[in-house]
């Protein structure tokens, strides 16, 4: 059994150490908000935060995150920055099919946590997840909105 700290709670899971964190989250813990898209860290749909830093869980062996704080989309609104990101996503009506958006919200939350006022270049470097619906422009507008909201910066 492996002990993980997921969304603030300690969870014991029966999995081999090499199992990608993605499948532990989805199948062992039943937290299906984190998505499988490619399995090779190309699309970003599987993004979670490890100690507040966005990480692609599909290539992250579960044994490598023991003792670290894992945050999935299910707990995003418990995080003050995450909550602001969600509100910006709703305000800008970002999602279309929505399948990539858990990962997009994670990437944006991680970015704003590290850098409350990201520049265009910072956004380009951080927001690289794929969206087949092409919501890139709306995502960018939502992140700019967050970056500009200085009084709300966490």
């Amino acid at each position, binding site marked *: 059994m492996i002990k993980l700290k997921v969304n603030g709670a300690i969870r014991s899971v029966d999995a081999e150490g090499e199992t990608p964190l993605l499948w532990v989250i989805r199948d062992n813990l039943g937290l299906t908000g984190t998505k499988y*898209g490619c399995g090779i860290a190309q699309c970003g749909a599987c993004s979670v935060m490890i100690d507040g830093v966005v990480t692609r869980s599909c290539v992250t062996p579960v044994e490598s995150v023991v003792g670290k704080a894992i945050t999935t989309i299910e707990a995003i609104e418990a995080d003050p920055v995450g909550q602001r990101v969600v509100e910006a996503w709703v305000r800008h009506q970002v999602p279309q099919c929505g*399948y990539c958006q858990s990962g997009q919200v994670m990437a944006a939350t991680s970015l704003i946590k590290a850098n409350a006022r990201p520049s265009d270049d910072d956004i380009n470097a951080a927001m690289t997840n794929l969206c087949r619906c092409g919501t890139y422009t709306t995502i960018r507008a939502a992140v700019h909105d967050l970056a500009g909201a200085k009084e709300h910066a966490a």
Partner: protein
Amino acid sequence: MIVSPVEDANEDQALPTGAPVNISRRRFLMASAGASAGAFVLGFGLPVGPARAQAPVVPGTRVPAFLEIRPDGLIRLQSPFVEGGQGVFTAMAQLVGEELDADPTTFVVENAATGPDFQVMPRGRRITGGSSSVRSSHLVMRRLGAIGRTMLLTAASQRLGVPVGELTTEPGFVVHAASGRKLGYGALAAQALDLPVPAPDSVTLKDKSKFRWIGKPVARIDVRAKSTGKAVYAIDAHVDGMLHAAVQHAPRLGLEPGTIRNEAAIKAMAGVHSVHVLPGAVAVVAERFWYARRAVEAAEVDWREPAETATIRYMPADFSTPAFAARLAATDGPGELAETAGDATHALETAATVVSATYQSQYLNHAQLEPPSTLARFNPDGTLDVWLPNQAPDIFAADIAQRTGLPLDKITLHSPMLGGFFGRHFKYNHGNPYPEAIALAKAVGRPVKLIWTREEEFLRDSLRPMAVVQFRAGLDANGLPLAIEAISACEGPGEGIANKRGEKLDGSAVEGLTGKQYAIPHRRIAQRFVKTPVTLGYWRSVGNSMNDFFYECFLDEIADKGGKDPYELRLHLLADNRRLSTLLKAVAEASGGWKAGPYLAADGSRRARGVAMASPFGTETAAIAEVSIVDGEVKVHDIWQAIDPGSIVNPAIVTAQVMSASALGLSQVLVEQAVYKDGMPVARNFDMYQVLRPDRMAAVHTRIVESGEKMGGIGEPGLPAVPPAVANAVSRLTGKRVRAMPLAGQTFTA
């Protein structure tokens, strides 16, 4: 005279109607379909009695099949159309809410079960495709809301003891102004459901001047759930006792599994439940998906060539896309006629000038971000539940009935929200996981959820066809086109899915070459059918996705040859078409006035613009793109698009769909292609298969023009004009004519 001996795209997906529906089963399912459904106290909308259920169902009229109103006033709507990002759940709530007089943003919308109630499209069809959901059903769905409102008014009249004529509604309430009393819909629902459903033609729809929600940018009802990971897709389905499965498909279609050389070792791997041989695949069932995937990928399978390949879609070991493109380009002959006007052959012989060119498109994957999956569960009572992504529930249910031998009323199809579709989730031979999932569930006697990995998905996806089109145009002495001929060498998606030529030409092969509105008096559009071993499917905007690229780029060549500006030539050819000349002027105005360039932009970059138009799915579009060349690569800065769908339901969703379709159009013209070598796709994941990334997205500016013409589609029409607008801009900027997609791999200098 115009002859168009072609079939509608998606026609083969049609299904005969009249199958009996078991409403009580649907009710049972809704009551037991999981946490969200279980939380509802069912009010309005109990089972329609057996006597009435026997009568022929008029689709879209039986209010209790569609609507439930909870005691607290919350409204649940069963949508005939599946939500996959295009916003149709919100649109359906707007249409029904408008006439029911209930705020659509308070609706909970789900994809409806199978059955005739929900076959609301003309001729009893039900698909989510062809950009047809709203345009085919808006009056039916509004009427449904109006019937529901009548039932609530009647119930209130009985409750208050006043004539119906003294009652009005405000959102969510029936109001008796004379006595100052009002009753919430939730309080009336239980009584209203006892009433007979009024005759559909007894209700009157609102005048559009009274619309409260239709035509307004109503917020999408699914956005918060999709921003917080709460939206549930087929891949997320879960039932008790479920096992997980993964498959390894034959590397080429038609091969069958022989010996699994390391079968004993596979069976001994951690978590493995069992190993299975299926048609064209081997499967591992395991306790967790990761165990199943790891084991099946380790399987060393001897794949056997089929004994004969005449009746199957067989992929030979020597197939490659470059060689196939060359074969398409080498075809000759007149082809089979798709559209003709005047006498193009004679006009070409006598023209002052003849222009000719050959264009080519590429195969494309759907690359929707949610990989296909299916959960199948055989129940102790002999029924079967299946959760699967699909765009046509009745068609899938009928196929499952045929495969399992179960009658339709023992099969419950669950159609969750789609993680993108773009045409991916129609029924494709070899292209859907449900036959495998059902076979595995049957074999192991437990529920099984099968997920296709991205690699298996890219191996078995049904692709947008490749085509090579040979054009000729005849110009008069003034440089104006008198005649155009387009002969497309390709197999259309309809033909590919049927795996044979139909009696009529496949309209989805040539749409976008046909149906053009320019006043060129002599026209001849034809197809040379060339069968491909690649499995084909519908891809967002179908034939238009490539054919408008071909036609609109060649039209710029005509303009060049005749010494005309490409925008002015289009205006000239549309002089008698008020709708399209208005639209073309609208996009030019939106872009700050037409200018082709090249010119120097404020940042010092050298840029040019291209223009193109399209007439897809009952909607008219015009696009202008501005490009520059950066490090030998095309950069698209801005896309202005004017769209005339006749009339609209939600301008915010229209704008979002034009942006989305523009992104897919950009992806196609800039980077995307499915390449085959040695009978196999070179790209099996997003590392090799390029799709548009954030840094290549352009700013999209949408202008909606409501001409008041018959309502057209929204989900797809924003795509076809984008690739040619970009290519025409690149040609203008570089002086080198673009005649093939994608631009990646071609070199450019500004």
